[in-house]
């Protein structure tokens, strides 16, 4: 239900992609608020297409559960977020009720945020399914804010099969209101010149920071609309609400919101990579090579972002979807794929109980092993947590470590990959073909012979 705002407000509703004849005046509207539509419910519908068009409610299924997300079909029956699930059942008994699968939503959320990151580094996530974007710097490359908004909507639709609503304005506050007012699957540009016409007819509750209590106070003063607050003497507001709140509301009512989009990536907490096998895997050697591949990718990403991490975690999802995670904190932070792999492999052998039998510690440093896991694996992930920036991080060297060790080798490989692509350099055991090299070989040495005093 995209609201058709009258033209004289100066606002323009832009139909998605097609049929847009009006070129919205989006100059200076560099703040985008992107909000996924009925996010959890939509993710559920996406993975179970038979639910499309039916009312779907995601929420706690227990007696005290509340609605986390409802599809628009369910909302038509009056089902709302945060409503007790029992009430939702009474309003819409024919709805499909599902327990939340946060892992799945988080995964989709990451994909959504990645699309945002492709547009601009200035992304400020507000929650799992919404974010502010500052596209001021992206305009030369990608076009006007409205064009970028359409691009985002199109990518989310085609790549993820989901819809979202985008509010485009000159401030965060107005951008968020714009998206709220044009849901679902909407796109609303509030031109700089049209902000007041857009704001003033809205109820005071639309102002950021106005809840039931403040709304009641304002109502007693006879202020029902944002326009009323804008026109009210500041002294009156100050008496009723106090200095800070009065100034804040008055500014907002006049469309003033100085908060910048806090992008510049709010320091990722971890860097990880995972892969789902096409068919479940029970061959130990395949697992080992997969972990090496993942560790290689994670190491490269760490080095690219100039970070090192102390904790290595692995994730193993079995064929029956049971998911096991294990982590281990290293003595010193690392961005070296080989060290990440060593920790990941140690965690894996420990997890599967293979260690101590035919995979004793000596085998961890290399060579050859075969084996079959009792339970096949569906997904493997490697993650490095506890990140710090590399600058000036003192690094504890290991005994027997060569001065130019694996870290330098991997940095050299990064440079080659940057120039010639990912296929140019990779660990030998990840090379395709039947005659794989036995093991990747370290710099300045040809094998880890017994004369070498190297501690694995």
């Amino acid at each position, binding site marked *: 239900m995209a609201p058709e705002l009258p033209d004289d407000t100066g606002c323009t509703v832009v139909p998605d992609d097609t049929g847009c004849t009006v070129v919205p005046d989006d100059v200076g509207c560099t703040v985008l608020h992107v909000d996924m539509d009925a996010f959890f419910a939509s993710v559920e519908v996406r993975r179970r297409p038979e639910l499309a068009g039916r009312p779907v409610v995601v929420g706690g299924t227990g007696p005290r559960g509340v609605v986390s997300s409802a599809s628009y079909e369910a909302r038509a029956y009056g089902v709302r977020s945060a409503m007790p699930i029992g009430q939702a059942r009474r309003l819409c008994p024919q709805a499909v009720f599902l327990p939340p699968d946060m892992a799945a939503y988080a995964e989709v959320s990451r994909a959504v945020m990645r699309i945002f990151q492709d547009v601009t580094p200035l992304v400020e996530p507000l929650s799992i399914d919404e974010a502010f974007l500052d596209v001021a710097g992206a305009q030369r490359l990608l076009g006007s804010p409205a064009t970028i908004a359409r691009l985002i909507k199109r990518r989310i639709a085609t790549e993820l099969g989901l819809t979202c609503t985008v509010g485009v304005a000159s401030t965060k506050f107005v951008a968020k209101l714009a998206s709220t007012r044009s849901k679902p699957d909407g796109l609303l540009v509030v031109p700089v010149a049209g902000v007041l016409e857009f704001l003033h007819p809205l109820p005071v509750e639309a102002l950021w920071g106005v809840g039931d209590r403040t709304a009641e106070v304002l109502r007693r003063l006879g202020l029902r609309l944002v326009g009323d607050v804008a026109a009210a003497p500041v002294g009156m507001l100050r008496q009723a609400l106090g200095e800070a709140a009065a100034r804040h509301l008055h500014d907002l009512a006049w469309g003033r919101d100085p908060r910048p989009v806090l992008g510049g990536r709010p320091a990722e907490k971890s860097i990880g990579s995972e892969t789902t096998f096409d068919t479940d895997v029970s061959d130990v050697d395949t697992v080992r090579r997969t972990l090496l591949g993942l560790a290689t990718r994670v190491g490269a990403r760490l080095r690219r972002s100039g970070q090192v991490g102390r904790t290595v975690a692995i994730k193993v999802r079995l064929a029956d979807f049971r998911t096991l995670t294990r982590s281990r904190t290293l*003595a010193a932070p690392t961005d070296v794929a080989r060290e990440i792999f060593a920790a990941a492999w140690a965690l894996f052998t420990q997890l599967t109980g293979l260690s101590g039998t035919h995979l*004793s510690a000596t085998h*961890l440093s290399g060579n050859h092993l075969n084996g079959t896991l009792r339970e096949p694996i569906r997904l493997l992930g490697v993650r490095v947590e506890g990140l710090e920036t590399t600058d*000036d991080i*003192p690094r504890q*060297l*290991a*005994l027997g470590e060569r001065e130019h060790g694996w870290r330098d080798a991997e940095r050299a490989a990064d440079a080659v990959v940057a120039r010639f692509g990912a296929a140019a350099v990779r660990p030998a055991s990840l090379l395709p073909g039947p005659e794989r090299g036995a093991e990747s070989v370290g710099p300045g040495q040809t094998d880890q012979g*017994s004369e070498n005093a190297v501690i694995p």
Partner: protein
Amino acid sequence: MKFRVERDHLADAVAWTAKSLPTRPSVPVLAGVLLRVEDGVLTVSGFDYEVSSQVTVAVQGDSDGAALVSGRLLAEITKALPAKPVEVAAVGSHLELICGSARFTLPTMPVEDYPTLPAMPETAGVVDAQTFALAVHQVAIAAGRDETIPMLTGVRMELEGETLSLLATDRYRAAIREITWRPNEPGASLYALVPARTLHDTAKTLGPLGGDVTVALSRGGVGEGMIGFAGGTRRTTSRLLDPDFPKIRALFPEDHKAWARMNVSALTEVVKRVALVADRTTPVRLSFSDGEVVVEAGGSEDARASEAMEADFTGEPLTVAFNPSYLLDGLSVLDSPKVLISFSQPMKPAVVTPAGDDGESIPGYRYLIMPMRVGS
């Protein structure tokens, strides 16, 4: 079973055996200690399939027999008893404990379900208990605690002729201690990788008892993969780790270019003080020059500290950065008035050795620390 025993003797015996009991036993009986009285001797045993410990105590026995009770509970009770003789009796499915006016009744577990403790392997030789305890303490600090690399959680024992060597490393530091011992067979050459924690606990218990510690190590056949230690009335067996161990002797550099001699307690205090501004992963920097060392820690934006102290230094001035706890660990076990730190190249490990008042190195113990690289 019924006996009378001095409270201290009972409490010591139970505390020692209970310490090696598993916190989460795979079968309930393993949480127990076995009390067995025979001919006026009480034997207290604990076992978790990895480590067994057994101690004998002379008691006034009224009747022979055995009982199995929760080790942790019995240890706590005996520790808290007043210093009076304790009367212990198995009554039906309970164990009664009377000490002064205190009376405890504990449930017992079936003795017949308790596994047989492994026999001591063949005796390999004997070593002075106190020397052994100090040597183990000096080496065990360098052992790894990361269970995912089992081999580094062990202390390697090498028994070559009359020399008993202990070696350990966690990849970042390494320690070697050589002591003399008296092998049963003069030409024997044996080695074993013993879990560091068990070895450390055992040596710590046996050291203060004085006398000799008997080292028992199987050479194939009975007790394969097992080591035993006996001293006084106590004995312990432990399963060994896979014998593979890195060749850490080769890591000790030979070509030293600089030497610093310092007072151990002074250096310890300075490093501890300065390290207050360092966290687990930030180093203390030691800058040596003629007659002096400046110890510093902290970054340009963080809290900082520095302190200078006297050092007898030979060589080109140099700065080296260490993890403070690695350095302090080494200093804490030297058991000497002075320390000698020898350097070869900046990014090569430094060797810490004990030194006498005259600054001369005392042979037998070497502790190796890998420096930290500052900046990336």
